[in-house]
């Protein structure tokens, strides 16, 4: 691997930038692997990286039907936080947040993690009570979160409108200072590069069309658009398309896939120093390093695989954001797109073994998977390598829907979904 440092940057500057090499190989698929990860997003690439770096498995492949960074990893609004209500969620997302803090160093890749603070607004007494409950629950779990009055919120984020006569008045806000943003596709590229340097084969343009099982029912091989690939273990990390793959093995999951939209404005000078979210009005906004406002809307109402959504969904969000930030009214939207998110009934993910020996699944991240990328990948690699869950993901099973042990972040309203 060509290490990145100030020195290599300087050397390449003098050499006319002609010495940079491809950051990962494009190998032909081998006939067999110890572990095959289906889905080359951040979660899948990260799992492959941790399988190689922490569990000594180098005969690993990641199969991606498109290109690296082209799925939800490159489509999300890059927000990172861990202020979830329930103990299980707080442990999982805070595990991820702690890994984010050192990720650029461990991958030797600048993922541009910026802990600029995530502020969640309260517009009603009910919002205020829920957010304060979150603040207290988080602090009991060792996750930082604090309550701000409207004046304190405005001091932290001066563009915020805290007048009383607006449609969504700000009654206060919960602030997680360790939260923030990261450069989303750099996360996929960084994991791809690091995994590749440890011997992992990253195979793009390779769609899985079926999974074969042996006489005992265990996984045996994958049918792909680039031929048959044998695998002892298979980890499925296919986000919105997880159901499609799992249905082919006869495993039905409690998932539905919805389009989730995001949009960016034209670039402008620094105006928004933190991430601002509002669960009540389904809006979240931050400013990228390029200066664009990155805005996330809610999901569309119906299941779909089209990677686009209806205009009225993003309009609803924009109207609310323009109320909160009157200065944004004259901005123009540059791009608008959708990603397909797989949503579970309790809005918590599934990171677990399945009923099929050798088949593991990491799915159901719904509208909020990006923030969990390193933590999810880390515990998923553990689950695959040891054939048992890490203590952090032990509760995130498929069976919880049968046994009633839901981790009901949907009811807790910790996420804008």
């Amino acid at each position, binding site marked *: 691997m060509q290490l990145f440092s100030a020195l290599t940057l300087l050397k390449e500057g003098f050499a006319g930038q002609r010495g940079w090499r491809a950051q990962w190989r494009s190998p032909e698929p081998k006939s067999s692997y110890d572990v095959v990860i289906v889905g080359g997003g951040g979660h899948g690439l990260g799992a492959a990286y941790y399988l190689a770096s922490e569990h000594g498995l180098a005969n690993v492949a990641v199969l991606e039907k498109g290109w690296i960074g082209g799925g939800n990893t490159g489509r999300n609004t890059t927000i990172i936080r861990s202020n979830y209500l329930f103990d299980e969620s707080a442990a999982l997302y805070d595990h991820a947040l702690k890994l984010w803090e050192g990720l650029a160093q461990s991958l030797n890749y600048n993922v541009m993690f910026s802990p600029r603070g995530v502020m969640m607004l309260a517009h009603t007494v009910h919002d205020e009570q829920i957010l304060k409950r979150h603040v207290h629950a988080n602090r009991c779990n060792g996750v930082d979160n604090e309550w701000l009055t409207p004046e304190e919120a405005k001091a932290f984020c001066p563009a915020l409108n805290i007048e009383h006569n607006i449609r969504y008045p700000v009654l206060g806000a919960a602030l997680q200072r360790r939260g923030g943003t990261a450069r989303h596709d750099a996360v996929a590229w960084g994991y791809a590069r690091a995994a590749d340097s440890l011997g992992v084969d990253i195979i793009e343009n390779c769609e899985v069309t079926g999974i074969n099982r042996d006489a005992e029912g265990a996984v045996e091989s994958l049918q792909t658009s680039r031929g048959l690939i044998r695998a002892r273990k298979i980890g499925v990390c296919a986000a919105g*398309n997880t*159901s*499609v793959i799992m*249905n082919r093995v006869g495993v*039905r*999951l*409690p*998932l*539905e*896939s919805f389009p989730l939209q995001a949009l960016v404005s034209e670039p402008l000078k620094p105006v928004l120093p933190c991430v601002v979210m509002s669960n009540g009005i389904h809006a979240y906004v931050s400013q990228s390093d390029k200066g664009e406002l990155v805005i996330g809307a809610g999901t569309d*109402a*119906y*299941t*779909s*695989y*089209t990677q686009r959504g*209806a*205009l*009225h969904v993003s309009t609803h969000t924009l109207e609310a954001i323009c109320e909160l930030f009157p200065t944004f009214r004259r901005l123009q939207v540059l791009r608008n797109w959708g990603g397909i998110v*797989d949503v579970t*009934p309790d809005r918590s993910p599934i990171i677990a073994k399945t009923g099929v020996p050798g088949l593991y699944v990491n799915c159901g991240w719904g509208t909020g998977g990006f923030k969990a990328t390193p933590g999810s990948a880390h515990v998923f690699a553990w689950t695959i390598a040891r054939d048992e869950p890490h203590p952090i993901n032990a509760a995130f099973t498929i069976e919880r*829907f*049968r*046994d*009633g042990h839901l981790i009901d972040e949907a009811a807790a309203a910790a996420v804008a979904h």
Partner: protein
Amino acid sequence: MLLIKCPYCGERPELEFVYGGEAHIARPAPEADLTPGQWAAFLYARTNTRGVHAERWRHTRGCGRFLNALRDTTTDQFIATYKVGEARPPAELAQQEP
């Protein structure tokens, strides 16, 4: 925004409707002695079809009635809408559309 043909009112914009999830999932009879696994399958497991999907909509801000629809989830094109209680039309209708 989708244009949805209500079997009672004709074509109306999506905003008049509320989505009701996958269609033709029969609630088990009250006397059925179900295992927790069977209950979970009824409550939570969904086909989540990539392709022609049978689904429920309710014309909430119109006639108020439920309807079923076949929609291709890879294009969002409606293939057919039909009344609740009617059998699912064949998916080949897709080819007959102009």
